[in-house]
């Protein structure tokens, strides 16, 4: 079903067929297929609720969820929670990315420090960051700070590793070139290390953003008075499954938007790659 509608679309635009073909092979196919996938999912969802005739608190139909969604958008409730979650994610990303990138750079540059500190970092990873969430809530309260910290903790390690790999993978020939040009440390950092490790750093950002959603929601589950994680918990408590679905959809929309933004950023910044 998806394929036939795409090829029909392609033949209509004969004049720029080659462009379209290239586009479809790469990025576009996902974007085109995506709405079809969503529609398909909603249809299946509808059929399941129709045929199964489940009570609404187990599986509400698409219509009920849309209605709930409409309600919380109009009365501003959704925005309050979305804003809270986004703020926590932004704080967590800034803190987690900042510290992980700086420490990663230092460790990549200093094998001695890496050997000294590395084992502790690896050991700390055997405790899942989400398991520390309750402790952070006790220490830092149910406000935004504790959630920011959970976010930062969850994304810290993967971003750290990415940074180390990125900086270490800088081409030896280019390092020699910079040395032969008598480049200062700062010049080498700005003109070589940053652009050379950008692909890996952006990969880290992608992982970091995805993980920050998880971090924020887990933090909100454990103790919060707002945020999408809180909303899901609340919906569970009052058996309003439609509300829970609405919150989940909002969460998915956030993750997806951020992911697409970073992908676009990657395409823009890394157009020099083959």
């Amino acid at each position, binding site marked *: 079903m998806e394929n036939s509608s795409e090829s029909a679309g392609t033949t209509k635009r004969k004049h720029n067929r080659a462009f379209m073909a290239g586009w479809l092979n790469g990025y576009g196919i996902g974007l085109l297929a995506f709405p079809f996938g969503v529609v398909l999912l909603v249809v299946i969802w509808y059929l399941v609720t129709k045929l199964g005739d489940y009570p609404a608190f187990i599986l509400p139909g698409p219509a009920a969820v849309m209605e709930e969604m409409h309600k919380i958008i109009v009365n501003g409730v959704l925005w309050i929670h979305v804003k809270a979650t986004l703020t926590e994610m932004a704080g967590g990303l800034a803190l987690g990315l900042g510290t992980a990138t700086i420490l990663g750079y230092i460790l990549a540059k200093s094998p001695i420090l890496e050997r000294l500190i590395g084992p502790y970092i690896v050991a700390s990873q055997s405790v899942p960051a989400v398991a520390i969430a309750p402790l952070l809530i006790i220490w830092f309260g149910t406000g935004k700070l504790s959630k920011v910290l959970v976010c930062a903790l969850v994304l810290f390690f993967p971003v750290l590793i990415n940074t180390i790999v990125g900086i270490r993978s800088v081409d030896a020939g*280019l390092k020699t*070139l910079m040395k032969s*040009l008598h480049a200062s440390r700062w010049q080498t950092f700005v003109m070589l290390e940053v*652009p*050379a490790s950008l692909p890996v750093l952006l990969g880290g950002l992608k992982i970091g953003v995805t993980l920050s959603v998880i971090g924020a929601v887990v933090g909100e589950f454990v103790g919060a008075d707002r945020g999408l994680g809180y909303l899901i918990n609340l919906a569970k408590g009052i058996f309003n499954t439609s509300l829970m679905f609405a919150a989940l959809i909002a969460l998915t929309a956030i993750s997806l938007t951020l992911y697409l933004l970073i992908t676009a950023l990657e395409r823009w910044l890394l157009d020099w*790659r083959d």
Partner: protein
Amino acid sequence: MSINSFILEAKNLGKVFSDSSGKLPAVNNISFSVSKGEFLCIVGPSGCGKTTILQLLAGLLDNTSGEILLGGKPLKGPHRDISVVFQKSNLMPWRSVLKNVLLPLQIYGTPAKEAKEKAGLYLEKVGLSEFANAYPKALSGGMEQRVAVARALVQNPRILLLDEPFGALDSFTREQLNLELLSLWRDQNITAIMVTHNIREAVLLADRVLVLSPRPASIYREIPVNLPRPRTGDIEYTREFVDLTYQIRKAIKA
């Protein structure tokens, strides 16, 4: 002023690499002098220490004995008057061709406008103006090395060091680039030192050829090349050229 007639001198130059597995002598007590404007080629068998010698001259490696004099003064580390064309082109893939040529000037702090004009000029000299805004991924191997040559010349060095710069290219491209290099060397009025294991290339380019022993490199022989200039590819079919290549070959096998 005999001291100042040489732009570069190596005196009892030696390099021993040492690591946990032991000591590896790579260059053994080499002495030679290079006159201003000379084209010197250094040939030797694979792995004998040619790259090591060039890196010592570039100030990229510390020597373990002897000294290098640049214009009579000891060389300590990389110097603006010396630039290097490496075996690999070493272009930054995220910079356009023009911006790659611009790199040395940015590092040396040349004002942006002047730098850009100069980079454009040198790109023109190597015949790649129309690729100024292309990324390196769009270039062939020969074009990449042309960019590398432009980048090495843009800072107006007095000495150009070349480490088998065209070694990875097919023989036609290689000859073409060698002839282009010769004409650049002439109009830039610089001193060139090229390391290669290609004897014909050495004779085509050089005023003088140093023949190295197997590792650790020492100088076996020094062979002057008194062929007329400007040289063209046809010179390779002259009696004198063939005699010289034969002499060098014998020296290497000795």
